[in-house]
């Protein structure tokens, strides 16, 4: 049964090929069936694989498909590697991916480029599966770049608007910075350890490198560079909010549930390296912490429903990084899974709201929509509760695991924990600010909104609601993967600490209610305090990171490009071209078309030749 995993990426690839070769001539019905059906089949296979994997005793399993290339001892294969980690990932990718595909058949129904959309989506799922199933770093990198490409294509899906193209390019270029670091890391690993097979490499690293030595630190740092780029963490987080330019299902699938968590997967997959470099691992935790706090502040000041969710995603991935950094490997992956459930739910719910309100995205032009949009209301209620880690929803378990692990870190543990809890408090505020503004208060526009109908939209939402509520009870078979970590210890934590962890998000919800739900406190009054407006602007702009990067990189680059508009190096080649053109013009004049002239030149040539012969 386990040998069937080669079918997993095959179905989306087939779907992609069919849709791509049909050149969009397929009717929407068949295109939707192919697009969503291929992922459905993949999910079915994934479920079968999961069952037999759990029955077979959690042994990791490699399925060779063929040898990619074989050059002088360097022979990376296209081999699929299945263990607990990749099992969780494929279930999330195909499961959530399938739901989002089904949802998309409803959401995109009116789009003229329907089949192109599913074509890209299938390619994305294929690349993502390759990324998590690849048994060597090269295959992983192929999937890594593949999902980056699909992300680019899908952010710029509505390419008529130049802004979307700009957002797509920004995402592509910013992640490319991280990818370059990662590629160098892969080169370094291959040069040092002589293999790209992940498991062999990790064993070799463990055997050859001492804890805390320089090499693992450098490689881990480089891999971290790739991870922060793909997962939108500080300092490369600026692309994700702009990536919301794409269709909403894309935001749900790629920019919330799967692709942006690839960085988390990468670190978890190579966790041995990070354990060999404790300083870098701690850096991961701090990167996650700072990102989650900054994104939390920004999310509180945004007005665009999708941008709020985008910053929330950045913040939640920050939690995952925090978890990775403190050694809660399975906690981080667990949070990855639950986050995929509730963030997909929130995005799809947001998509339903946006569609119902004729593509309105400003939350302050909504208001009091709970009667008109009951399903959306339910989505945001359940998704919001799970996001704020309300007790016994899915987010509660995973976030708890991370924060408790953070507390156990020696020295800085308390700070990490405190930061995480404060972040959870902000999560409560911004999530329910969104919730109250959209669904309560008075209606501020779109009074005649009607909920979009259709089972293909409603059913995925209800399934995701169930998963968001109860997903925390799903056991993840990760212990075998991270067996040498400190996972098995029972966590001891005082009741007071636990109480704080539960209470603070609720406190955040309460503050939201006071400001936006009941109107007892007024945001306008807060804004009239001295300095608050500037602070609001600062947070709203994402801590001015975009402006900083414009100042540091974009503008100098543009300046250089302007200065060097007439390429200096090109000037030499231009000169060559001009010379040869001048020579050509000179010679072309000799081509008069008169036969006698040709004969004359031939005779002259003959004379010259004989002259040479005579003289020599």
């Amino acid at each position, binding site marked *: 049964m386990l040998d069937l995993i080669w079918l997993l990426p095959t179905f989306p690839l087939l779907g992609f090929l069919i849709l791509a070769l049909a050149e969009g001539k397929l009717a929407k019905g068949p295109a939707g069936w192919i697009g969503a059906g291929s992922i459905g089949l993949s999910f079915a296979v994934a479920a079968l694989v999961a069952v037999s994997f759990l029955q077979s005793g959690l042994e990791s399993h490699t399925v060779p498909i063929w040898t990619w290339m074989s050059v002088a001892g360097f022979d990376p294969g296209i081999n699929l590697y299945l263990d607990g980690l990749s099992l969780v990932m494929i279930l999330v990718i195909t499961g959530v991916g399938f739901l989002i595909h089904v949802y998309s058949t409803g959401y995109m129904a009116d789009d003229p480029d329907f089949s192109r959309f599913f074509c890209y989506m299938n390619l994305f799922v294929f690349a993502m599966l390759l990324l998590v199933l690849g048994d060597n770093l090269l295959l992983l990198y192929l999937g890594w770049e593949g999902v980056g490409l699909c992300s680019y294509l899908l952010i710029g899906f509505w390419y008529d608007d130049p802004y979307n193209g700009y957002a797509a390019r920004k995402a592509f270029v910013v992640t490319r910075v991280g990818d370059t670091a990662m590629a160098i890391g892969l080169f370094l690993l291959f040069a040092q350890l002589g293999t790209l097979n992940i498991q062999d490499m990790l064993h070799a690293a463990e055997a050859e490198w001492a804890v805390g030595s320089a090499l693992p630190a450098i490689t881990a740092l480089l891999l971290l560079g790739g991870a922060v780029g793909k997962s939108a963490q500080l300092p490369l987080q600026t692309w994700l909010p702009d990536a919301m330019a794409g269709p909403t299902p894309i935001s749900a699938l790629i920019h919330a549930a799967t692709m942006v968590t690839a960085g988390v997967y990468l670190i978890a997959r190579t966790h041995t390296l990070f354990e060999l470099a404790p300083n870098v691992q701690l850096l991961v935790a701090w990167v996650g912490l700072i990102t989650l706090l900054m994104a939390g502040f920004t999310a509180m000041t945004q007005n665009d429903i999708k941008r709020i969710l985008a910053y929330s995603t950045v913040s939640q991935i920050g939690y995952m990084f925090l978890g990775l950094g403190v050694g809660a490997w399975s906690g981080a992956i667990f949070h990855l899974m639950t986050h995929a459930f509730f963030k997909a739910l929130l995005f799809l719910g947001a998509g339903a709201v946006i569609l119902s309100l004729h593509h309105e995205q400003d939350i302050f032009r909504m208001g009091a929509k709970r009667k008109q949009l009951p399903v959306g209301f339910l989505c945001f209620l359940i998704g919001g509760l799970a996001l704020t880690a309300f007790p016994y929803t899915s987010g509660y378990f995973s976030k708890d695991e991370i924060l408790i692990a953070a507390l156990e870190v020696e020295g800085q543990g308390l700070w990490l924990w405190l930061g995480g809890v404060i972040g959870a408090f902000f999560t409560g505020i911004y999530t329910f600010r969104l919730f109250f503004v959209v669904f309560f208060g008075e209606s501020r526009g779109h009074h005649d909104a009607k909920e979009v109908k259709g089972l293909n939209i409603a059913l995925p939402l209800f399934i995701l609601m169930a998963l968001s509520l109860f997903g925390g009870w799903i056991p993840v078979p990760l212990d075998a993967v991270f067996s040498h970590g400190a996972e098995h210890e029972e966590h001891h934590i005082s009741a007071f600490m636990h109480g704080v962890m539960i209470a603070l998000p609720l406190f955040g919800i309460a503050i939201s209610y006071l400001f936006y739900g009941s109107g007892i406190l007024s945001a306008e009054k807060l804004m009239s305090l001295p300095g608050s407006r500037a602070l609001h602007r600062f947070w709203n702009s994402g801590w001015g990171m975009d402006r900083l990067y414009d100042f540091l990189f974009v503008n100098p680059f543009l300046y250089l490009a302007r200065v060097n508009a007439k390429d200096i190096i090109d000037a030499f080649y231009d000169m060559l071209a001009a010379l040869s053109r001048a020579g050509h013009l000179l010679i072309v004049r000799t081509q008069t078309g008169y036969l006698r002239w040709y004969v*004359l030149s031939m*005779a*002259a040539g*003959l*004379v010259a030749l*004989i*002259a040479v*012969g*005579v003289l020599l």
Partner: protein
Amino acid sequence: MMLLFYLAAVVAVIATVCVIVQTNIVHALIYLILSLLAVAVIFYTLGAPLAAMLEAIVYAGAIMVLFLFVIMMLNLGQNTREQERAWLAGRGWILPALLAAVLLAQLLYVLSGVEGMSAPEQVGVMAVGARLFGPYVLAVELASILLLAGLISAYHLARKPGAEDE
């Protein structure tokens, strides 16, 4: 014999000069025939009777008659004299003449050192034929193919446009 050679040589050179300066095309053709016949005489003096016969029959005879036919078909001749004269009036001949003079000077310089006399004996038809159909048989075949190709292409080129529609 020597006298015959030099006499024929002078005739050939003069006739050739007349060919290239003539304005009447029929006269030019007559001069060319004269020149070719003079060369035929030279061939004979050099002990090549077969070549001399062929020069007279094929060159001066057949090929020149071909020219004559064309001239008649195009109705060139007297009425084109004025035009020929106009074409030759310019200075266009100086550069070619100069070039040809240089070439001739070079040839003279190169050939001036050649030693040896022509053989007193004639190389007869027998000898030529034996070698032609001996070691040169492939060249003969190729020549026949060339002639065939020339025949076909001349037929094709010279017929009236649109004739193939019939």
